[in-house]
């Protein structure tokens, strides 16, 4: 499958369209705020259109994962090596993009959340130009990670995301923004450093024979997945060696920081509380998925032996995250912090589903990634709406909002119930699948994890009661209901949440082939 626009592949357009937008924004004078906003909106909307086209053209029967032939929209050329020089053979860093069933939903999610993020950034007044420049750079980084098939390229996009995120939290954030920004940066950078180490080790372990018959070291993820390509005597050669386990742990930690999995989660509540609403939306909607996506794309197929060996550890950490996140969420009286901890809990479900190494569990996990992205984005937008009007976020600061803002309350209820896992809304389907898969693999861990659902129900209902029901507060009597702009950002998410709750088939079909291939591959290679 190929699809070119002006001779350039569609994935390159998807990734670098925001950079183009960034340059446009830079050219607009800083005081023309609306022009800047509309440019950013136009660019991200265009990106969404491309993502939708890609989804429509996507061939559901092609597996991808470790087979270069069945990847779609592939673009590949040498990036760092130069053709004309004789010793080119040895280094190979590729510009290698492509998507399969694992990434297609994430690409779509990134595009959707990016547009919504721009709409919800409309009322940012501080240095609009700088804000949107960084925002668009961030979008490029996220999109790049989801389509990169070369480890080096993946790493570059992964790190490129850090810079704009750091400034977006640090400059446009709340009162403790510098603390939150630096904490976020150091955690993620530390993870990146571990990834770099493993990446270097893999580079020197993996070599394939090219057309000219030379042995070539490569960063190509697909070559790394083939155990025949590991050079004999190299550090990661063989199966179930100590070095491979060490590499697995290092790589796992670097992704787990991003997920974030207990005990690497402490940056998340700080970052969420201090970040401005649209950045929280991006953070919860897309950034957290990078961790679990990285595990599926890199950790699982490249180090399958470690994955099988450590599957109980993953499930255990998933369980702890579910329970711990839910308990912490119950204890919060800050609305935003509550959602942040609920994110940790829900990402724990993703982890649990993935760890099961079963088809249902993994499908559920990937679907949960998508659903959590949309639902949590809605929840953060919900908080943002209240915060814009009252500049308060405490759960006890509100009450009886349902009387003042009926439309708003309706939408917020849907989001909260979806997060709770109410049947008929999207959260239910994916959580159900994840637990089903996990139950096959680890009975007791799953049973304990299900307690997390009960806790979730408790804090969600409690929140609804405290914020939306009950006695209204005097000073909130004149709160205006949702404006047109706010409706525009809520309604698409609302539709997705309801649609996937009633009829999740299309989403599952998109990824099913790839995931069964992946699960089978890991199972075969690791056991």
């Amino acid at each position, binding site marked *: 499958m190929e699809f070119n626009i002006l001779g350039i592949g569609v994935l390159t357009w998807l990734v670098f369209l925001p950079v183009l937008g960034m340059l446009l924004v830079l050219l607009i004078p800083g005081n023309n705020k609306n022009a800047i906003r509309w440019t950013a909106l136009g660019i991200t909307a265009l990106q969404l259109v491309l993502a939708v086209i890609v989804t429509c053209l996507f061939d559901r029967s092609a597996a991808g994962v470790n087979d270069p032939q069945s990847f779609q929209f592939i673009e590949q050329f040498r990036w*760092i090596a130069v053709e004309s*020089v004789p010793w080119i053979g040895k280094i190979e860093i590729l510009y290698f993009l492509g998507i399969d069933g694992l990434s297609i939903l994430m690409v779509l999610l990134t595009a959707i959340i990016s547009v919504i993020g721009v709409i919800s950034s409309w009322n940012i007044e501080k240095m609009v130009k700088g804000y949107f420049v960084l925002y668009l750079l961030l979008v490029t980084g996220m999109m790049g990670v989801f389509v990169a098939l070369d480890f080096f390229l993946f790493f570059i996009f992964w790190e*490129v995301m850090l810079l704009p995120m*750091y400034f977006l939290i640090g*400059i446009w954030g709340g009162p403790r923004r510098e603390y939150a920004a*630096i904490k976020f940066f150091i955690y993620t*950078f530390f993870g990146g450093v571990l990834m770099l*180490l493993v990446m270097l080790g893999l580079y020197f372990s993996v070599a394939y024979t090219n057309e000219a018959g030379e042995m070539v070291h490569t960063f190509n993820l697909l070559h790394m997945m083939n155990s025949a390509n590991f050079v004999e005597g190299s550090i990661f050669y063989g199966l179930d060696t100590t070095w491979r386990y060490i590499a697995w742990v290092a790589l796992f930690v670097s992704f787990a920081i991003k997920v974030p999995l207990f005990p690497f989660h402490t940056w998340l509540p700080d970052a969420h509380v201090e970040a401005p609403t649209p950045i929280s939306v991006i953070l919860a909607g897309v950034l957290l998925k990078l961790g679990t996506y990285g595990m599926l794309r890199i950790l699982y197929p490249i180090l399958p032996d470690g994955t099988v060996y450590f599957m109980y550890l993953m499930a255990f950490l998933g369980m702890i995250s579910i329970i711990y996140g839910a308990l912490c969420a119950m204890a919060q009286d800050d609305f935003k912090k509550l959602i942040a901890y609920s994110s940790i809990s829900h990402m724990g479900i993703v982890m649990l589903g993935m760890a099961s190494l079963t088809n249902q569990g993994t499908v559920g996990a990937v679907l949960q990634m998508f659903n959590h992205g949309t639902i949590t984005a809605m929840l953060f937008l919900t908080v943002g709406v209240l915060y814009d009007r009252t500049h308060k976020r405490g759960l006890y600061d509100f009450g009886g909002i349902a009387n003042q803002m009926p439309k708003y309350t309706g939408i917020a209820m849907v989001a909260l119930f979806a997060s709770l896992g109410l049947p008929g809304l999207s959260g239910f389907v994916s959580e159900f699948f994840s637990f089903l898969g996990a139950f096959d693999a680890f009975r007791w861990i799953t049973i304990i994890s299900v307690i997390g659902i009960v806790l979730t129900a408790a804090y969600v209902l409690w929140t609804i009661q405290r914020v939306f029901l009950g006695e209204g507060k005097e000073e909130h009597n004149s709160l205006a209901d949702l404006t047109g702009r706010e409706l525009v950002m809520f309604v698409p998410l609302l539709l997705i949440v309801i649609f996937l709750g009633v009829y999740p088939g299309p989403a599952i079909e998109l990824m099913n082939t790839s995931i069964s291939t992946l699960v089978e591959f890991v199972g075969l290679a690791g056991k």
Partner: protein
Amino acid sequence: MESVNELLTISPIVIIGFAGLFVMMLDAFTGNARWSFYASLFFCLAALAGAVQNVLGPTGTSFYSLVYYGGTASFGAVLVLTGTLFSLCLSKDYLEQTGNHIAEVYSLVLFAAFGMLLLVQANHMIVLFLGIESMSIALYALAGLLRDQKKSVEAALKYFLLGAFSTGFLLYGIALLYGSTGSLALPEIAEASDKGVMYWAGVGLLFTGFFFKVSAVPFHMWTPDVYQGSPTTVTAFMATASKSAAFVAFILVLSRALPDTSQQWQEVLWIFAVFTMVIGNLLALVQENIKRMLAYSSIAHAGYIMVGLAATSGAAYSAVLYYLFAYTLMNVGAFGVVAYYECHKNCDFTEIKNYAGLGFKKPIMGILMSVFLFSMVGIPPFAGFIGKYRVFAAAIDEGLISLVIIGVLASAISVYYYLSVLVYLYMKEDETGMVMKRPSTLYSLALIILALLTIYFGVHPGLLTDFLGSFYSVTW
């Protein structure tokens, strides 16, 4: 004709040496420092052109095998001259605004650069010694340039005493190597068969001398004092050009004079690299003065570079050359921005906490500082990342896995202190309400070029890395 060709092989040295004398005389006759400034810029550019031409040409020795040209040596000259050129561009404004615009600066800088060029092209211990000494003596004087400021003079004294001390070690090392191998020429030292006690004592003392010059821990004590006390643009010059020169000479000595015994001294470098990286980064964490912080950060960078030296492969040496290039760009840049900020409020504006909110006042300066600092952190897509990545990759290829793990973790520590500058620039409010000056065109142009180069060589490093690899016919 033959002799003209020989002269061409040392054209940068000849041009810079002449320039130093010329600029000194120019001041005597015109009495206007401005002329000295333009003349030295001109000569620097000319020497840079000569050095670039030599880099592109073949390698070889000339002047009775006293100097070595082409390849690593001439690239070393390019590094030195790049550092010199850019720090000169920044010097005029800075010195004028701090009220110290005296023409001797330029001739001293050129004399120091002359020493560095000798150092990188040395093929013989006498030339190496002369180079290191002409460089150091000029730098002692430069450090004490502001002779009525206590800090500056103190820096000069410390630099001088420790420098003279280290000279003794270096010379003793040379003497013992001479005694054990019977020669002072680098290739002949390599050929000698006797590797007794005297040889090892000589190598040890020589290493000590070099460790002083590249400020490796525990021979780093002078670095922070000198970097803080010296005029900032001179610091930029010292931090980049002199360090590049010392490292390139170190590489040449290691690879040309001591290749056979690399198994043994590799371990010495291993240990010093660990200390330098860890201690440099840890001490940088607690600094409050930005010049001191950058000094410790440069010590840490020396540690990363020593990881490359410890790897001893051609790939590692070419990676180090790349790293030095990136290091030169980002450090001159960072010191340049510091020098710009310093020129406000009685010209003593170097505490990190002074930077509160300044990132918004002159947005371009803030962005430039961010680029340089992020490049030092080693984040893609900046040149610093590629440098660090290649050095560590080369070391892993040689099996120095634990060393690389230590290095990478140490560089993770460094994030904190680099970012703390950005925290002040962008995330604190400015309460002083001061008005920032507009930098001159040349000044901003130099900084912008540095930043663009930092980005360019981060996004598209292939050409340069392949070129540097060709010095060692490296296969990557």
